[in-house]
């Protein structure tokens, strides 16, 4: 019995699915904490599970005298170990290799071997998450008589760039400039159903819906242009909003004129997210690498650099994508070093429910972050080929930092956040 508000996230999914292991037994149970109801937070259960699991993997590798990356590579799997489905795409090896190069893995020393009171270490951790998206998800496109386009959907942009990437996909198909596209989100009364902001679903679910609507719009425009110009559709070229008759380049019509000539005022299409392919597993993968310093006299950990190498299918917009990786890493840094609910055990009251005592990292705590995208379009998922990045970006950060801390001081910190008191206690065996 775990009370009225159990959370079903679990922490064991990375243990079940990250590596090939034919004989695996997982036991997982909930406990009653009397600590308020559970809430999901960015990659629920996976940040925590990965923090523990990837430290175990490093420990095993060390015990058998093997490089941690080499150990992960020999336990690599092409299929989902849980049910045997082949992955639509998996670029984890590329993430290991490119990440290792960017962090300077070859400079990594033996655990705790550094001189002086401030010891430096390098560590890494891998990540698996879903994030392939799925139906249902719809988007409606309205092409207006001035050639401008409205996109509407019930999904939302929580600061991750949904407005931008939906406009980009429509712009790419219809060749309408971004500044003539307006996106309306977050209103399920006027827009069709869109996915909720969870599960790293928004980009991989909603961009194919816009893609589908844009392709339908292109069909309508082409058929309209053919009728008005009195040629067959095959005889038309399309570029930057203008149809041209192949053999008679003087005969042209732009999309705004098509809407007017058809007396349609507005052309409307609604697109839907395609079904996912049968028999395949769709997952995101990544590996993050941390370069840290541990002050053995104060117990304070300083993270110098995080390299975040991720397989997220197609990068629709590298800038908003990198921003999400930065955000995930900084939030992962918070989990690793600062953030903790501290509860008074006699009263059950949280004593640090404010932004001073609950310490979110500031810009001064934030290291250099180097995002690397190792993947390209995953055409098995959708014509857009994107997977989600919202949750993958936070999952391995704390585990990578903890493995780097071990590499620095040769002592394992098994509880997050790794605050100075815990580090000092671990070093001094208190």
């Amino acid at each position: 019995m775990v009370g009225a508000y159990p959370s079903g996230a679990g922490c064991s999914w990375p243990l079940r699915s990250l590596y090939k292991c034919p004989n695996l037994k997982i036991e997982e149970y909930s406990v009653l904490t009397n600590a308020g109801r559970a809430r999901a937070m960015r990659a629920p259960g996976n940040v925590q599970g990965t923090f523990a699991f990837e430290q175990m993997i490093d420990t095993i590798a060390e015990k058998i005298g093997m490089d941690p990356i080499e150990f992960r590579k020999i336990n690599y799997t092409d299929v989902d170990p849980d049910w045997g489905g082949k992955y639509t795409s998996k670029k984890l090896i590329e993430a290991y290799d490119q990440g290792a190069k960017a962090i300077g893995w070859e400079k990594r020393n033996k655990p705790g071997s550094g001189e002086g009171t401030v010891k430096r270490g390098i560590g890494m951790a891998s990540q698996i998450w879903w994030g392939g998206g799925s139906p249902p998800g719809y988007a409606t496109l309205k092409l207006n008589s001035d050639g401008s386009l409205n996109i509407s959907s019930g999904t939302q942009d929580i600061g991750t760039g949904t407005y931008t990437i939906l406009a980009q996909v429509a712009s790419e198909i219809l060749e309408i400039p971004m500044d003539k596209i307006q996106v309306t989100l977050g209103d399920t009364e006027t827009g069709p159903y869109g996915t909720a902001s969870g599960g790293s679903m928004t980009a991989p679910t909603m961009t194919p819906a816009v893609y589908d609507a844009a392709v339908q719009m292109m069909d309508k425009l082409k058929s309209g242009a053919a009728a008005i110009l009195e040629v067959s559709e095959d005889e038309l070229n399309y570029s930057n909003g203008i149809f041209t008759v192949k053999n008679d380049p003087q005969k042209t019509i732009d999309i705004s004129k098509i809407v007017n000539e058809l007396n349609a005022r507005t052309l409307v299409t609604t697109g839907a997210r395609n079904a996912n392919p049968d028999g395949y597993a769709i997952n995101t993968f990544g590996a993050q690498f941390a370069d840290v310093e541990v002050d053995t006299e104060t117990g304070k950990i300083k993270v110098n650099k995080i390299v975040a190498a991720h397989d997220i299918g197609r990068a629709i917009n590298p800038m908003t994508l990198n921003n999400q990786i930065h955000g995930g890493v900084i939030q992962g840094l918070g989990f690793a070093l600062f953030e903790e609910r501290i509860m008074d055990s006699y009263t059950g009251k949280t004593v640090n429910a404010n932004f001073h005592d609950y310490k979110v990292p500031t810009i001064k705590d934030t290291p250099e972050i180097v995002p690397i995208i190792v993947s390209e379009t995953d055409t098995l998922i959708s014509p857009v080929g994107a997977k989600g990045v919202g949750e993958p970006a936070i999952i391995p950060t704390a585990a990578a930092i903890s493995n780097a801390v071990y590499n620095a001081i040769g002592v394992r910190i098994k509880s997050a956040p790794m605050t100075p008191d815990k580090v000092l206690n671990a070093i001094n065996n208190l």
Partner: protein
Amino acid sequence: MKNFEYIQPGSLNAVSTLSKEKFVSSHLFAGGTDVLGLMKDNIISPDRLINLKNLPNMDKIVYKKGEGISIGTLVKISDIAENEDIMNHFTALAQAAGEVASPQLRNVGTLGGNICQRPRCWYFRGEFDCIRKGGGICYAYEGENKFHCIVGGGPCYIVHPSDTAVALTALNASIKIHSNGTMKEIPIREFFILPEDDPMKENILEPGEAITEIFIPELETGKKSAYIKLKERDVWDFMTVSIAAVADVSGSLINNVELAFGGTAPKPWYDENINKVFINSKISDLETNVKKIFNDSELLSKNKYKLQLIRNLTKRILNNFSA
């Protein structure tokens, strides 16, 4: 928040009269960075806020070579951190000021306010009827006490939160106080009090009194000062432990030293016996000597690490003098 009166008097006598009026609870207000937080969290609910900002000549820094430096109570923390005379002659104070909170808070907070700020204990600041708020027990004693004191505690176990107070204690500053029409000067080492004397106050100020300036005597030739602070987060965080030192170190010999400790006790901790451990000792003996300090600590369930931390930081700050 309940209604309150807000007054900006133009004279110290008016401050005295207003702040000790019977049946009106008053609170002094300098920069306000702490007072507003206390009011919003319902720790205090004054009837009257008395803003000191219209008082003349309280925002000046005056350095007289050979005598010392006078710093007005309303001088901003950021101005102290960046003042060249303070940086050159009273380095510990400039460093401590630079460690306070965040740039935004340093631009508003004042020196007088900083040393009079209330403790950050999360039971005091939270919904707990603790001793410091007139209740019956200290919840930290058997509760979440990783940031609490290791000496000077009982019946309350706060640590004093001010960075500048620790530096001023090592620098042997004195505090000038206007008290009902007269002035008095109190050594800062006697300004703060322990919970055993009054668990609801952190210093000796009474209603009708206000700090006007802080004076630091010029250091003797050969002495330098420094401040070192460990905080979990790199900015906008109070000390886990901090140390200020005024020391005369020549080569590998510590000729003289005065140490003050923050994050250690309910007041900036100053103990002549700790100084004596290091006076006329060698830098090379620090490793052994730091083990002689704070052996009488009362460690709580979650703050044992602080003893090691204080010793390590003592070693570090004294080592830095010889570097």
